[in-house]
């Protein structure tokens, strides 16, 4: 599948886009990206994803789960953000897919430079957080955060926001009709009067 093949040109573009964001050994990263992608391609087909490979999906899901973590309330993982992102890249936001995959490869390669022989998803949460702090201004992180917000808070029909988890987190009620009072502060509003307040 053509979308599984990462072109050298798009990788270099992705690297150029991240330059200045963090001081990293770029030659190593380009090399590692090639290996990472080969590894990811070998994993393809194991998860129910259509655009991302299983290994890519594991890393993206792990990043999303750090963006909106699970604590006493559900987070990105429970909301099914990874399903949303995979479906978005495969279908309704496919114009972003090539750049996203290229940025993801850079992210994975950078991670392998820091943590050889493993993947972001396999790191401990503390290690993940420490690494993300070094890359949280890169195009990959920013795109993933954007997609995580969309996957958490748009309609469940797009694959995320499972059971309205995202809307419950916000306190948003998906109704088509409301009546005043809407909130605490308009409850006992006395009505608008022209002389109600001090004037200059």
């Amino acid at each position, binding site marked *: 599948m053509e979308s599984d093949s990462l072109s050298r040109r798009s990788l270099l573009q992705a690297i150029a886009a991240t330059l200045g964001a963090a001081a990293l050994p770029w030659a190593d990263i380009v090399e590692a990206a090639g290996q990472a992608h080969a590894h990811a391609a070998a994993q393809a087909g194991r998860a129910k994803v259509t655009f991302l490979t299983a290994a890519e999906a594991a890393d993206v899901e792990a990043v999303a789960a750090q*963006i909106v*973590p699970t604590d006493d309330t559900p987070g990105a993982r429970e909301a099914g953000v990874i399903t949303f992102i995979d479906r978005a890249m495969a279908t309704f936001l496919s114009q*972003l897919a090539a750049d996203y995959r290229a940025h993801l490869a850079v992210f994975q390669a950078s991670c392998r430079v820091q943590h050889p022989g493993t993947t972001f998803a396999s790191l401990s949460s503390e290690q993940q957080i420490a690494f993300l702090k070094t890359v949280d201004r890169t195009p990959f992180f920013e795109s993933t955060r954007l997609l995580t917000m969309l996957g958490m808070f*748009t*309609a469940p029909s*797009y694959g995320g926001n499972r059971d309205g988890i995202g809307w419950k987190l*916000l306190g948003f009620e998906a109704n088509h009709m409301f009546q005043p009072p809407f*909130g605490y502060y308009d409850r006992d509003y006395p009505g608008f009067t022209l002389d109600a307040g001090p004037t200059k």
Partner: protein
Amino acid sequence: MSARTYRDTDVVDFVIVGSGAAGGVVARQLAQAGHSVVVMEQGPRVWPGGLEHDEMKHWYLGGITNDPVKNPQTFRDDPSKKALQTKLKPALWYGRAVGGASLHYTANYWRFHEIDFNERSVLGEIPGTGFADWPITYADLEKYYTQVEWEIGVSGLANASPFDPPRSKPYPMPPLPVKSSGVIMERGARKLGLHPIPSPMAINSVPYRGRPACVHCGFCHGFACEVLAKASSLTTVIPEAEATGRCEVRSESYVHRIDVNKQGRVTGVAFFDRLKRERFQHARAVVVSANGAETPRLLLMSANAQFPQGLANSSGLVGKYLMFNYNSRALAVFDHPLNEYKSVQVTRIVHDFYNSDPKRGFYGGGGMDARMGPQPATWAIRTATADGPKWGSELKAQLQEFTHQMHIAGHTTSLAMESNNVTLDPELKDAWGLPAIRTTYKDHPDDLATAKFLQDRGVEILEAAGAKRAWRAPITPSTLSVHLLGTCRMGNDPKSSVIDKFHRSHDVPNLFLCDGSSLVTSGRGQPTMTIQALAFRAGEHIAEFAKRGEI
């Protein structure tokens, strides 16, 4: 359904390009005056009752707006740079369906004030800008503002604001019920000696002209109103135009060229129909109301041997003086729930800082309003990106403030500058093979200073009202707008303007332009009311010209 259809070979009196806030009004005026009219609309005709609260579709997938995939655009902040394609959202974002942006606007309906029309004379020249007076005054437009309020339907409270310009009639409907954000703004502003007032909105507070009152669903901004309480051309003037039996609204008809004869007169428009077949509609005159992005684009795409710079462009100003209206955000969280996601965006506004004040050290003024902002996902994106990297438990905690947050928007003047403009991208083409819109835009430093000034006042109001915490969203350069203003400005001098004060192009006698592109100054952030007042006035004058044989 259209009550009347015309054949391409029929020579109709008027083709109107665009069915939005301006085009709908002009169509109704001309059809009611007895003319045959074909309205060409790029987008489909969508019945509002079939619409849904689908934020993904409406904010990110071009649901009823221009689609970044089919209608790609490029953007740059400096003319020396190559403009880059905007992949997630268009830089110039507009309604692309029958009704245009009047479908998905917020429906804030302030009138411009007298000063918006003659500010250049009052304040003097601003070097490096195209700051100019209008060829008309507020008094020329007053009766048409009143016409908008009564015929489109605006709720509000007349004479509540000491800053409002004179009016001949009150509003036809009382203001909408106040929201918590409105109460908070009113309380904070009054503590500071300011003058908050109920916001005029083109949303029914009571049943009006056959449309019901608002049900407070909260999906105005970016969505068409499914109960028709929010006025749009689709549900007001277009049915009235069609009821004359003389107006056809032709949806999915994408006009890409206006043709002229040897005498330099317009003969009709070339368009792609829904099957992408190229067709031609003959007309005695053409009115372009395609918005401040598509109107100049169409004129530039209509360049020919006779008009090599583009149609109606002897001034070289077609596409130039693009103005956005910056808006800054002062945010706050309160102890108790506001639930701002319910009901209309805005219920209280403050116009105390409307006028420019030389003592501030920069040009500019603005209007402020209290609001939630967009729906959940876009709100969350803004929350996550407001100031640098934000994620993890810090982000999650802020997301959980959703029902307790609000913001005060500070809507600014934008100075007209030639370097801010719409041109044809030299490389990128749309899905019809037509040149993409290329936007070049950089806020004038005074626009950003005004944004900051209003943001500071907003924080003061929120703190005076007892905010638990108030903060400022970063003021970053504009890269996207839904206010598309000034790109075919009106004026008396054909060298420094594109249309005359009756919207007739200086160069082509039977070509009229009427929409946001006509504006000479930007106003203070809510342009649709003025665009529609101009359209009522233009429609009336164009009908008179036709009657007198002056077209």
